């Protein structure tokens, strides 16, 4: 049978498939070449003569939201197209809340929770039972949350729900499964310096947040080794009392499902609010850092600084600014570095925003070793150009079109609408956030862009990190004139003192 595309991943994807465009993605300098003849041709562009009828009316189906007396929130999203039911319970608290000496705990918890199983049914038996029905129950940990999620055919939905609830409320952490998870985590640790892109992404974030920040500190062999079954139990007890968000989607009867969820969750004690966080974000020390990797012929260049969070009222303007800087084929970075100079396959980036903490400002360029300095200068030039080369109405119009005309892809499936509702609930945003955000995008002006660029783009505060093959990088990084090149040590610490490169 032919495999659907999304089943191909990892090594299978290695040579099977390539795209014209990396995940990241232009400058409009070409227009200066317009001749008078072309200007008249411009007035009669063939594609502009194609009628664009009014879009069909569309009101996305919102999930039903129910807040239980104990504070737990339920979302029900019906979708009867296919005979499946899926669900999840989102639990506040993630890796940023774990003890520094046990960094990696949440990752291990997310793995061992499911593989251990419950007192009634251990993880292996659960695997056998579920897989025979093509059903799944999985657990996982993230930076700010953990979750148990499940899916099955409609006919098995009741049984799978019961099993998922048993796992949520009565897990039995098994030392052997913890050990298995520790082995897997150790494998990832010893391999973390194999891939250039992985090194660059990780180390650049550390330059901004600091190596010991709850957002960037990394699991080490010693810290994962320090995690015990009791730690997993304690974590579970501690987080289960938080504000759970339960979401269900698919082919179910809404009345019966609501009753079932009430029965399962109404009996839990009132939720405890998550303690406020007091993270300090100071941004990077400006300058240039280098990590040598002698088995590559390409440099991964990261230009980073501190971004912002979504509560910032300037976010709609910043989103438009990002689109102009590095958001698409027409962005300044893509046009300059890839199209005009041919120096990169992958180039793009912008000032990012997270829901509850400042994300990164990050521009990324991947280029052959010899053009490292040229490509970095070109990217830095475009960043500086945010304040130096004024925004034009044309750029604004294009960026708005790009964002607004594709805006409905944020809610074109019921699954996406549900996921957005859960996200907004989790971070405490109003349910109409997308509408407010869209209205904000529509109002952005050129003056707003100029003001935002002056407020948020500070080339002198950015750090540049290059991961690449030192001897091949000619001219050398000192040509960038960003001060002395700091070498970053990425040696993997070995428990007991020995070090492994």
């Amino acid at each position, binding site marked *: 049978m032919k495999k659907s595309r999304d089943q191909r991943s990892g090594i299978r994807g290695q040579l099977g498939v390539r795209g014209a465009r990396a995940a990241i993605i232009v400058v409009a300098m070409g227009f200066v070449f317009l001749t008078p003849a072309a200007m008249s041709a411009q007035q009669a562009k063939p594609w502009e003569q194609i009628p664009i009828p009014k879009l069909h009316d569309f009101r996305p189906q919102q999930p039903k939201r129910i807040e239980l007396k104990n504070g737990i929130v339920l979302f029900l999203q019906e979708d009867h197209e296919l005979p499946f039911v899926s669900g999840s319970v989102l639990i506040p608290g993630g890796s940023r809340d774990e003890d520094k000496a046990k960094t990696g705990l949440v990752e291990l918890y997310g793995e061992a929770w499911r593989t251990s199983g419950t007192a009634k049914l251990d993880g292996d038996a659960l695997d056998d039972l579920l897989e025979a029905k093509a059903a799944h129950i999985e657990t996982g940990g993230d930076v700010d949350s953990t979750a148990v999620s499940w899916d099955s055919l409609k006919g098995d939905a009741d049984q799978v729900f019961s099993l998922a609830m048993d796992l949520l409320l009565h897990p039995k952490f098994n030392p052997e499964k913890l050990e298995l998870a520790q082995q*897997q985590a150790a494998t990832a640790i010893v391999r973390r310096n194999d891939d250039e892109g992985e090194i660059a992404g990780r180390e650049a974030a550390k330059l901004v947040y600091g190596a010991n920040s709850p957002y960037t500190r990394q699991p080490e062999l010693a810290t994962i080794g320090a995690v015990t079954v009791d730690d997993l139990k304690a974590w579970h007890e501690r987080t289960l009392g938080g504000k759970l968000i339960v979401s269900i989607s698919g082919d179910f009867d809404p009345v019966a499902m609501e009753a079932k969820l009430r029965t399962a969750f109404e009996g839990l004690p009132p939720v405890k609010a998550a303690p406020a966080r007091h993270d300090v974000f100071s941004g990077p020390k400006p300058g240039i850092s280098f990590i040598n990797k002698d088995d590559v012929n390409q440099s991964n260049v990261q230009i980073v600084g501190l971004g912002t969070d979504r509560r910032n009222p300037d976010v709609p303007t910043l989103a438009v600014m990002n689109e102009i800087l590095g958001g698409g084929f027409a962005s300044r970075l893509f046009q300059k570095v890839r199209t005009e100079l041919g120096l990169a396959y992958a180039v793009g980036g912008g000032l990012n925003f997270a829901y509850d903490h400042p994300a990164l400002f990050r521009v990324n360029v991947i280029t052959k070793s010899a053009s490292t300095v040229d490509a970095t200068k070109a990217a830095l030039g475009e960043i500086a150009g945010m304040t130096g080369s004024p925004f034009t109405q044309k750029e604004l119009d294009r960026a708005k*079109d790009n964002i607004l005309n594709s805006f409905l892809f944020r809610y074109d499936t019921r699954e996406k609408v549900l996921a957005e509702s859960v996200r907004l609930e989790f971070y405490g945003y109003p349910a109409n956030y997308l509408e407010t955000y869209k209205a904000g995008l529509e109002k952005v002006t050129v003056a707003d862009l100029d003001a935002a660029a002056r407020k948020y783009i500070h080339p002198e505060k950015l750090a540049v990190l290059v991961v690449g093959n030192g001897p091949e990088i000619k001219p050398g990084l000192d040509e960038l004139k960003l001060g002395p090149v700091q070498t970053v040590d990425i040696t993997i610490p070995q428990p007991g003192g020995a070090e492994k490169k």
Partner: protein
Amino acid sequence: MQNRCLSRFWKSCLALTLIAAWTGAQAQDLKSFEQRITTKVLPNGLTLIVCERQDAPVFSYSTFIDAGDVNDPSGESGLAHMFEHLAFKGTTQIGTTDYAAEKVALAKVEAANDAYEAEYLKAVGRDPKKLEELKKAFKEAEAEAHKFVVPNQFTDVAERNGASGLNAETGLDNTMYFWSMPENRLELWAWMESGRLSDVVPREFYKERDVVVEERRMRTDSNPIGRLVEQFLATAYVAHNYGRSSIGWPSEVGQITATEAMEFHKKYYVGANIVVAVVGDVKASEAMPMLERYFSRVPAGPKPEEMTTIEPKQFAEKTVVIREQTQPFYLEGYHRPDYRDPDDAVYDAIGDIMSNGRVSRLYRSLVRDRQIAAEAQGFSPFPGDKYPGLFAFYAVPLPGHTPAEMRDAIHQEIDKLKSADVTDEELAMFKTRTRAGLLHGLADNQGLANNLAEYQTRYGDWRELFTQLEKVDKVTKADIRRVANRVFVASNRTSAEIDTEAPAAAAKKDGGAE
């Protein structure tokens, strides 16, 4: 147009019965997929498929070209992919300020490149000074042509009109172009897509070639697994193009010319070689005449002839060892037949039982019980399915464990498959999971468009997406044992591994100096 659907209706009824027996009340919904799909073959041979799904005012499309890098002419590896990049550069109508003048300038670029290459490739008597002059002349011709370019206008128009997930993929077997858009842009899309299929211009070709070479550095040269896989396939195949670097050997992809890319387009981008599938908020009765008008612009041309090369039977076991300072890895592969083989579903069964999830044999043996690997899987076909590919196995060793241990443990599991039947539960699980997987795949407009176009190309009928379940149902325990015994033999095997070299040894190799 719809007659084509009806004549094959019995076949889909059979498929729908099978699914109905299993999911009960849901059959109506599945049947509705059949009722919502309209197919039409245009006079130029191009096949259009429209699947109506009015959930949201959007559509996704997939253009599937039955040509990929396996079709690259000798000495031009990477050409199909290079052309794919060209397909984003616009047409005679989009991306240019004055096509008539641009055409003349592009001809000069090509002549300048030919002159440079002729000098560059001289085996004897290459004149460095002349080469430098020719390079300069080429750059000047390129700059002259660039004056007529509106950079990235094709993609710009798409993005300004709400294109989402705009991309393309070139595989060994085929090339796919795809995006999603608001439904009121269907005609605009049809104009754009039919334009780039029929009216492409070799604009900014040589700069884009640099971009592709950069892509090669990222995916292959600077990635340990990328390097290993390239060597693995080059070793496993002696005759067939599956053994050739698909992104292209550096010397070849670095010297592809615009003329070569346009010849590739002329030969392979013909109606009979193209299927276009649209899924979403589209009414076939209204859209089809409009789509027909635009896509009739694609040149007719005969279906390109199939290649004659068949990989000869392997008779010697082969091994590749890469020694470097990256973590160990093990990969092996066995030649298997193409996707049309009667046993195709049997290979899927083996892949599922060996690899799918925590119940799989390789996970339970290598990861859970013996605790020597972080991950272990077997899958097929690789690197393609149109021609005989490989059944591949790989394992990622835990710290302290070696590729040799991975190999031995994988072979033990293969031997079990050869000497004893799989269990009833394993076989039933494969069949159940395959059906559920098919259904899950129907949920997404883009995924469905890709599948409809691919199945229409490979089987001449998109309904095979459903009817393949019949073949899955027929797989027996004896089939699995028979196929395992025939295919998984040492003389049919190629293996590749990364052995980690200590830093000190590496330094010594380089002469010890920093």
